[in-house]
């Protein structure tokens, strides 16, 4: 088995990974803003539908205009991702296409058409359709984007936690056995809620930042205040929701991807009553055990335990990496022998014996392609710091939204207490400590903070994906297919050229988009 896979150029694997990461990271710059703005502009237009005032119509149209600029880039970067499964991960496409292709097809039929049809009505239908139909179109645009997120996250969740399938040695691929197990896997549900809800944070931060900039400029005060009120409710709900769903995701990862959790925590030697590191040397006692197992003394394995083998809390012996690699090789050899025997019309007993060996070891099939056990460890620094960036910034958003909420909504007693506290620290003029107008509710330093929150929101969001994807390495599909067995047979130079083509293209277009957004924001709504 030692010669296996030597003919694949390591550069092809690295460039293919880099290209997929590039397109995914760029795609994720635009999608969360689409999902988040869809909710906020939907609420604004609903208010227009109820109140029928020109103010709410122009407010909805303003956010829709910014939505449109961002939406185009999301669409452009998304198409590459879908086709890259085929272009760059050819073996993957066949080996799991029977399962993985279905969510993509459903996404196209159910979500993309809804999104693309009604977004046209939303943009061009103001004077052509009734207010009710237009409002419906606006919400259906957001719903289409959210349903799209559901199906692509189902596909991604399946890569992290493959369920609802069985391996067919005759077709040499995994085949679906339960659509509902795939579509409703606990991993997919956690991932969907965590991802979509956290996307709303970006939408809310963006709207609050733009609105605060208007407050600083003393322009469009009414639009700014009303938009902040909508966005802060969405943002606070999303930030708290992201925390709750993130906790649930952590527990699922602890069960199905313990190596990812160990890398996130830079935990080499696990045990019971494990603390959660804030940074190296500072930790919350019992925090990791609580996060992973919901108990203070729960056992959490470290990287070394996972490589050397350990005994789980329920007494099950988890094999060492060497044993998994050995069993993976047994599975691959049994499969090769089975196919050879079948081609030579061997008797049933021989075939059954080979199949039994394959099935007994198939759980570790992907490990058969692993040459060095250290390849099984994902990048610890990336996972460790990306996780901290995500969680730390998530906590910051809760504080930020909470503070803005309290200041913008004049909550009896609570708002006054907070204003006085801020005033005592010199963060609010004394004159504004007891009572203030909505236009003055957010002090200048908080307005600038809101503007600074925009890049932080993107860092948090991208960090979440870094944890999800780097933490899964070296697998394209957990325990089933490592990246070097999933890749297409291409020259690394070809992939390198397309990588730089897309890098230049996406970066240029991102620069154009930011430039347009800034101009549109400076121009402001047509009130």
């Amino acid at each position, binding site marked *: 088995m030692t*010669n296996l896979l030597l003919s694949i150029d390591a550069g092809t694997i690295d460039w293919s990974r880099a290209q997929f990461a590039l397109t995914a990271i760029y795609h994720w710059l635009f999608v969360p803003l689409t999902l988040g703005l869809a909710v906020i502009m939907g609420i604004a237009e609903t208010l227009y539908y109820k109140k029928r005032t020109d103010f709410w119509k122009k407010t909805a149209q303003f956010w829709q205009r910014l939505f449109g600029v961002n939406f*185009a880039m999301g669409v452009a970067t998304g*198409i590459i991702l879908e086709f890259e499964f085929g272009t760059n991960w050819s073996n993957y496409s066949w080996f799991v296409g029977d399962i993985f292709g279905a969510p993509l097809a459903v996404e196209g039929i159910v979500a993309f058409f809804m999104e*693309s049809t009604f977004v046209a009505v939303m943009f061009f239908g103001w004077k052509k359709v009734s207010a009710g*139909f237009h409002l419906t179109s606006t919400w259906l645009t957001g719903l289409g984007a959210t349903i799209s997120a559901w199906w692509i996250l189902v596909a991604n969740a399946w890569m992290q936690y493959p369920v609802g399938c069985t391996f067919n040695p005759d077709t040499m691929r995994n*085949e679906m056995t339960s659509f509902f197990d795939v579509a409703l896997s606990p991993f997919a549900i956690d991932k969907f809620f965590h991802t979509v809800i956290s996307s709303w944070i970006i939408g809310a931060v963006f709207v609050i930042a733009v609105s605060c900039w208007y407050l600083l400029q003393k322009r469009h005060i009414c639009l700014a205040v009303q938009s902040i009120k909508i966005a802060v409710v969405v943002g606070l709900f999303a930030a708290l929701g992201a925390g709750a769903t993130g906790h649930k995701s952590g527990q699922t990862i602890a069960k199905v991807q313990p190596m990812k959790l160990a890398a996130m925590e830079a935990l080499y030697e696990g045990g019971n009553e494990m603390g959660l590191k804030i940074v190296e040397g500072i930790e919350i006692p019992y925090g990791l055990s609580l996060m992973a197992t919901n108990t203070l003394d729960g056992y959490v394995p470290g990287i070394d335990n996972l490589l050397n083998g350990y005994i789980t809390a329920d007494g099950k012996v988890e094999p060492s990496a060497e044993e998994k690699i050995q069993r993976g090789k047994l599975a691959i050899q049994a499969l090769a022998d089975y196919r050879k025997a079948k081609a030579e019309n061997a008797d049933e007993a021989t075939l059954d014996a080979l199949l039994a060996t394959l099935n007994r070891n198939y759980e570790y099939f992907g490990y058969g392609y692993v040459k060095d056990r250290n390849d099984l460890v994902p990048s610890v620094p990336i996972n460790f710091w990306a996780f901290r960036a995500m969680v730390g910034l998530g906590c910051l958003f809760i504080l930020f939204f909470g503070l803005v909420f309290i200041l913008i909504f004049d909550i009896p007693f609570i708002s006054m207490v907070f204003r006085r506290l801020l005033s005592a620290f010199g963060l609010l003029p004394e004159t504004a400590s007891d009572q203030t107008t909505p236009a003055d509710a957010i002090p200048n330093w908080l307005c600038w903070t809101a503007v600074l929150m925009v890049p932080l929101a993107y860092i948090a969001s991208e960090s979440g994906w870094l944890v999800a994807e780097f933490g899964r390495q070296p697998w394209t599909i957990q325990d089933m297919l490592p990246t070097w067995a999933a890749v*297409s047979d291409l020259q690394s130079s070809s992939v390198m050229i397309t990588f730089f083509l897309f890098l230049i*293209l996406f970066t240029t277009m991102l620069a*154009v988009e930011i430039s347009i957004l800034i101009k*549109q924001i400076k121009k402001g709504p047509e009130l």
Partner: protein
Amino acid sequence: MTYTFLQHYWCFIVSLLGALLVFLLFVQGANSIIFSLGETAQERRLLINSTGRKWEFTFTTLVTFGGAFFASYPLFYSTSFGGAYWLWMLILFSFVLQAVSYEFQNKLGNFLGATTFQCFLVFNGIVGPLLLGGAVATFFEGSNFIVEKNNLIDIYALTPVISRWANASHGLDALLNPWVLVLGLAVLFLARTLGLLYLRNNVADEAILQRSHKHLMINAGIFVLLFVVYLVHLLTKDGYAWDDSGLIFIEPYKYLHNAIDMWYLTIVLLIGVVLVLWGIASDLFRDCKCGIWFAGIGTVLTVTPLLLLSAWNHTAYYPSTADLQSSLTLENSCSSYFTLNTMFFVSLLVPFVLAYIVYAWRKIDSKKIDQAEIANDSHAY
């Protein structure tokens, strides 16, 4: 439902999506001639705003076509996309350029200028249909690939990859086949013909209408010539057939045999051709401005059976010129029974989807687009 039925059913769905995509390439066709049709900046903006209200349908159909192919025939996805890398990357690259070009070109802050994005639209307008047509031609002409599933488990294999291209050009070699170019150019000129018919139906501008009439005659003429030449070639060429044991072999006049054996497809194809010709002629000679509907429906009725001729009736739909037995058939490349069956129920949503698209389209197109509308529309491209 039997496995064979589902294989054929999904082939029909993918072919229908492919045919709808060819019809919707009218967006690209119209974009490819914006500089000829629109002499002033305002006229070009009018043209772009006209196609700009439909581009997402084309884009979405392309994505769904890819998704449906992935779900139903994953070995094709793995073989064609992973092998003909450059061909597909060029197609995708052109569509990425198109996706941003509408929204960005006339917005404040676009430091690349409107002309840059209009050139992107022209690039996509030519490269998209030409290469997609070329890709479709490989269903009949064959491609240079090898499939060996044991590669993944064979320690002595040259490569662990199941599907690989047998030369280093990764798909660009298809463009060296003149028949691939003929069909590619036929699709390009069909897209331009449909684009012109669409603009004549959708735009209220006398100067553009006059110019489009002249362009329609030229583009439709070239399309008809190329299409007839390719059809004659197709019906007289050897094809790739397979027998019940799965053995693939060359059969003389295979596609002619298919056209005779599946006479119902031939009838639909002929009705489609007549409708396309009627659509063109009615606009050219009767100035009815409704040719897009005849030609559009005709395109779908022509392309769907044409694609089915490449796959049904024991035909290898993605033939390999490097290794005959590597050729892909509905049987050896499709998803499992369970997946095709599950997806069957999803596909029942297609008529519902088509219904709301038609409804929304009619609402948006209730009035022809003119320069005054663009001037008063804050979201105009």
